């Protein structure tokens, strides 16, 4: 029978907490940057200029069709060889995560915008609104509702994806757990605590998403 010993591992709670903080920081940072990349990609895909559509499409497919772990390793270990200067693991990690999630966000945003009836655009145009005014006042407020469930779902995955940064020694939760395990030789307790922490971070988020979605549906 296995003897659980959380006490030893709990001594390193500060390491777990600092890992959790870093995980949280990379999540927020990469989601914020990802939204920017996603919006750029979505509007480029909706543009009437072929070159913009092609560029956005290429970016999205490149990041969607290769594993994130490979992207992270490539950005940190391979890209500097091409550039001729090193990139810190923090920058490589943050940028890769952001570009990766941005590729998916782009599809979510584009889908939400396309889901709005063409008559809405025409109604705005008919009173003399510019394309920008139509987008801001009519399309986006409606599209955001449609995007939200998929957006939150992708963001939940994004929280978990930050764990892959352990591969380039970013001191996020998974990496710190690896460190604690190295010190205590208590993998069961260490990784259980890490899992619980991820769960506690994400479960309220998914609950909030459900609640929000129900609210939104009621106001339709």
């Amino acid at each position: 029978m296995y003897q659980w010993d959380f006490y030893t591992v709990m001594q390193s709670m500060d390491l777990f907490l600092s890992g959790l903080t870093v995980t949280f920081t990379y999540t927020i940072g990469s989601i914020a940057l990802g939204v920017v990349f996603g919006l750029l990609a979505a509007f480029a895909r909706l543009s009437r200029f072929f070159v913009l559509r092609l560029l956005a499409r290429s970016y999205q497919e490149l990041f969607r069709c290769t594993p994130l772990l490979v992207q992270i390793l490539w950005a940190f270990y391979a890209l500097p060889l091409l550039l001729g200067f090193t990139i810190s693991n923090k920058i490589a990690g943050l940028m890769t995560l952001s570009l990766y999630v941005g590729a998916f966000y782009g599809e979510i945003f584009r889908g939400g915008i396309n889901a709005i009836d063409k008559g809405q655009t025409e109604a705005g145009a008919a009173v003399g609104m510019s394309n920008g005014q139509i987008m801001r006042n009519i399309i986006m407020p409606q599209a955001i509702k449609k995007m939200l469930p998929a957006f939150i779902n992708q963001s939940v995955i994004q929280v978990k994806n930050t764990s892959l940064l352990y591969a380039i020694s970013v001191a996020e939760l998974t990496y710190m757990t690896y460190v604690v395990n190295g010190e205590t030789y208590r993998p069961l307790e260490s990784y259980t605590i890490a899992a619980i922490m991820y769960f506690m971070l994400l479960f309220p988020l998914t609950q909030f998403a459900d609640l929000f979605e129900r609210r939104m549906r009621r106001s339709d």
Partner: protein
Amino acid sequence: MNEEIVISLKGMTKDFGALKVLKGIDLDIKKGEVVALIGPSGSGKSTLIRCLNMMESPTGGDFYFMGSKIASTFKGKGDETGIGELRRRVGMVFQHFNLFPHRNVLENICMGPKTVLKQPKVEAEKYAMELLAKVGLADKHNAFPSHLSGGQKQRVAIARALAMRPDVMLFDEVTSALDPELVGEVLQVVRSLADSGMTMILVTHEMAFAADIADRVIFLEDGFISESGTPEDVLVHPKSERLQAFLARYHN
């Protein structure tokens, strides 16, 4: 003054790829005139009315509004009137209402005046309430579109177009999506607008209504204006066989 030409089309054409929908339309519309466009489906009447506020951009020909040429860009340059200004001055009501579902009735009506004309909220809302009273929906100003009947939605859509204080109103089959018992309330609003002297162009299948309110009826066929004249000329004494056959379907 009454002879002032508001809209003038000279040889207007519209192609959708290889499909030629409008094949050369010459049309002058005078201030205060009510013009009904009739014709079989595919005749180009919807495309024509949608060209009048540049919802579709014509492929060829010239388009003048109040004597000024319409530019192909949103902002006009030089003497040309931009598409944006044209649309501010030419209101449109659609078959499927196209109300903004995320905004209540009052906000639907005020959006144009507030965002485009930069009217203060108070002023926009005051006029919106007047218009709502005019279309008989003052008590619905807080309602969301999803809580309105089709007839009510269309009356809100008319008020929304009027809120821009347009010089011309375009009605594109505004009763075609309505249940028969709701058609009357919308036609009544359109009629009172015609009586008030508004310049109007309407695409309609309501022949009796067209005969009643229009100063001029235009029969479109295969991308051309094939007959044009008073309701009496066109609807009672049609010249061509095609128009006779077309009208026969409405008289039984």
